[in-house]
């Protein structure tokens, strides 16, 4: 595979991974999780 294509696919992969992490991070702001904050004390 040509070098520029390899960089392109690595870039796309990194961007998708970053987007996934941001989405999960936003998932932590979901009202159900906030309401059940007390439960998280037992998640450790």
């Amino acid at each position, binding site marked *: 595979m040509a070098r520029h294509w390899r960089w392109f696919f690595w870039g796309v992969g990194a961007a998708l991974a970053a987007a996934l992490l941001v989405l999960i991070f936003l998932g932590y702001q*979901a009202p159900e999780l906030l309401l059940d904050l007390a439960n998280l004390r037992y998640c450790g």
Partner: protein
Amino acid sequence: MLQRTNNMSPSSPSAWRTPTLILVCGCIILTLSMGIRHTGGLFLQPMTGALGWNREVFSFAFAIQNLVWGLGSPFAGAFADRYGAGRVIVASALLYAVGLALMAVSSTGLALDLSAGVLVGLGLSGTTFAVIMGVIGRHTTPEKRSLALGIASAGGSFGQFAVLPIGQALISSFGWQAALFLLACGVGLIAPLAYAMADGHKHASGAGQSAGAALVEAGGQRSFHYLFWSYFVCGFQTAFIMLHLPSFAVDSGFSANVGMTGIALIGLFNIFGSFLFGWAGGKGSKKNLLMLIYGARVVVIGAFMLAPLSVASIWIFSACMGLLWLATVPLTNGLIAQVFGLRFMSMLAGIVFLGHQLGSFLGAWLGGMIFDKTGSYDLAWLLSIGLSVIAAILCWPIDERPVQRAEPKPAGA
């Protein structure tokens, strides 16, 4: 990406079982097992509400789980070293899935203790760090080993970060019982992945040594004890902070959102920290990096106590602690491989992990007890700082050189 080690050969001639595939499968297994385990606490409210239990019934089962996980790890590791990790992972995944399914139909505290406590704890022993790190360690070259262990550790960190909101979404959408069955199905996915982890354990370095001899050898090395107790401190700090940070934030007058974002930041930065320190462990001294981590925890916790408490300070603290969270895992496991060899790496890593779990148990329990007795967490924070200083000092004299063994005498000599 990764090359096969030259001091071992796989037990199976199959060429498809490459080190990269083993690393990927190990990461997915850790993501599933660590992530699904992390959702346990989300079931507290729905289960206690539906079954009329108090919180103590539920929390006692999870305390048992943590202890069984720690106590079972050396045995799971020893079985993996003796019979191959693949079988141990499959059997453990089965126990884990059955434990979750039985948890869904538990109607008494004892049933919960046996399902969520004993079965899931045993399942975790064979599907988490000790066993998985052993396989990955045996299939990577010494130069790449620390990086590979760091990537695997980051996989477990990602699971802890990612599966928690998914678990809550399952409970909200399908109810807690169906959510438990679905999570049990998720654990079931570990079994086929274990096929790639069936490694050539008998050919690893130190093949002439028995498990008992490896135990005696490790027990006679001060470095092994230093690793055990420094890992104990790691468990103490992480359990205390994970369990009590949200309450600390709410008790300090902040909204639930602040504590929750703190937990999310720990999870997010944990992924990068695990990878970063794993990579750094391949470049420099692992014991120095462990000292750096424990020393940095002193600074971070101390600064958090001294600085005026604000939303920003909680989030900065969470991000910094996240970077240092599971960063000890690739370094500690990497040191075990480096000093004691690969043959009994899983068993020895399991014993050191027992120290981590004992620390976790104490951190969770003492944090609550100190708050109940004194009305604040100040003493618990100070205890964390003091223990971190001790851990950093303990890492200093660790001898990173491989232990010297007498060469076996040739037959007829």
